[in-house]
């Protein structure tokens, strides 16, 4: 389940008004989330939650649900 907080960070980082984001949503279907903006989204999340992702964690994420679970573990 994607939290409103994570959804808001993603939408703000991508300058989107609204977009449906679910567990299985992948970055490629979210408007504006491309290879160039990916790092920007990740850093926005890190700053907002006060957490740090490792390089390999970022590379291996497959969808937003995995991203949420990774955040949950780190903020545990």
């Amino acid at each position, binding site marked *: 389940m994607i939290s409103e907080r994570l959804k808001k960070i993603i939408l703000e980082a991508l300058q989107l008004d609204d977009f449906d984001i679910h567990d299985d949503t992948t970055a*490629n*279907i979210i408007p504006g989330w*491309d*290879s*160039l903006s990916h*790092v920007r989204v990740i850093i926005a999340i890190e700053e907002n939650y006060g957490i740090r992702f490792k*390089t390999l964690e*970022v*590379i291996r994420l497959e969808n937003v649900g995995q991203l949420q679970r990774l955040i949950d573990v780190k903020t545990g």
Partner: protein
Amino acid sequence: MIDTFLDGKETISDCWRSNAERAPHREAVVHYVAGEEPYRWTWGEILRVSSLYARALKDQGIHKGDICAIIIRHHKDFYPIYMGISSLGALPAVLAYPNSRLHPDKFRQGLEGMVRRSGLDYILTEKDLGSVVNPMVTGSGSTIRAVLYPLEWSLEGETVERFPSTEEGGDAPCLLQHSSGTTGLQKAVVLTHRSVLEHVRRYGKAIDIGEDDKIVSWLPLYHDMGLIAAFYLPLTLGIPLVQLDPFEWVSAPVILLEAVSRENGTLAWLPNFAYNLMADRIREDDLDGVRLGSLRMLVNCSEPVRAESHKKFLSKYAPFGLRREVLAACYAMAETTFAATQTLPGKEARNLSVAREDLSAGVIRPVSPGENGRVCVSSGTPISGCELRVLTDDGNALPEDRVGEIAIRSVSLFNGYHNNPEKTDEVLKDGWYFSGDYGFLNAGEYFIIGRKKDIIILAGKNIYPEDIEDVVGQVEGVLPGRVVAFGVEDDITGTEQICVVAESQADAEVNKKKLRLAIIQAGMEIDVTISKVYLPPPRWLIKSSSGKPARKANMDRAIAELMAY
């Protein structure tokens, strides 16, 4: 070192064979994967496996002159597959593996365009793409004879006597590479062995390449910068290449710096946006163990070189051993095999502050104190065998410090776009290639500052505005044919942003929001990120004499009237 090695060799295969004979245990390619031990191909081993692939490919019917598209992601066997094709005298053509954003139909359309234009004979790809690619074999007018999945082949236990010898001459075609573009506007360039070898010889000298060098690259190999500078150059001369996955690098740009540090890399080529990305998006605490003192040249190429990008990159990485003189630049294109000009090794690319007022009139004058100036970055002097001219729109030569179109004559110039005489005639005249780039000459060095063509360069990738206008024009709510797309400079990312102006009947803000989203999503189908969408009312766009919206005039109007708010 270069002349001694290349003398007497007529083909790329001759060089590869010689590299394996003189130093079979020397590293050829270090295949880098984040979080894993890299796979290290020695020259002896990569030639052995290339020979196995060559025989298997020959058994599949591939022979001299066949054009073989390779659509394979970052994989250690990519290199021996490529070399195996080449050793048969066939022409490898690396195509981009579709990322998940690209709609399968758009990928298929792009591929069909390439098949038509380039006359592809075989497609070598991964099983995952089979359902998309296979129907093309039976499609009407298809030249494709077979789709092959070489990564599925079991070659272990097989033996071959030696790397094949094609007995080709230097004039035989060596490879085919495509210009960018998404839906069939690609132009293919065929290069001969002689062109590639001459380029390796002359460009290698321009950067003083030597036995102690090691190239580190994340560049995709379907792009001329990746293919020629970071693949043919090292592999021809037997200099180790550390190849990263482009997809991994863009997700975690720090891996390039890690690879340089671990492997003691000395040379890398980067498009301008990469300097911004690595300066702005990598944090200090990710830089543990990063040491950049081994680098002797980072060559900025494929996008206009921006002084601010160099400055912020140096400022961030000087504490990690990056030296100022490492910041180099070059001007290159697939039509001249790769480089036309290059800055000197051991010397930072020169910055020149010019008065904007005179620049807009095509005249270069140093900026005076307090005056509005633009910092231009040198792309260096012509490499040997290459000659440049700066021309007026009428084709007359301009003197130093005057802005005009750059035309190039080179020993490594292409002979024309493959199967495309119309496009060839537009750019190739009396042995000169008209680049469509604007620039000037100052104190012997060339500065590239803009483009005559409408092409957009986003993160080093050439994108035709027509491709974007085509998909946006099909979005419901957009008036058919009433769309223009263009790129505008973005200082933050160090590349361009794509803007679309589309006439529509939408009036309420809620409808405009929906339409903007639909337009951005249409761009995603062709793997293009549209950053800004403007929706003026009908009859806003200025028409050209042909009745179509005039791109340049509308871009100027949009910047003045729409983007200011």
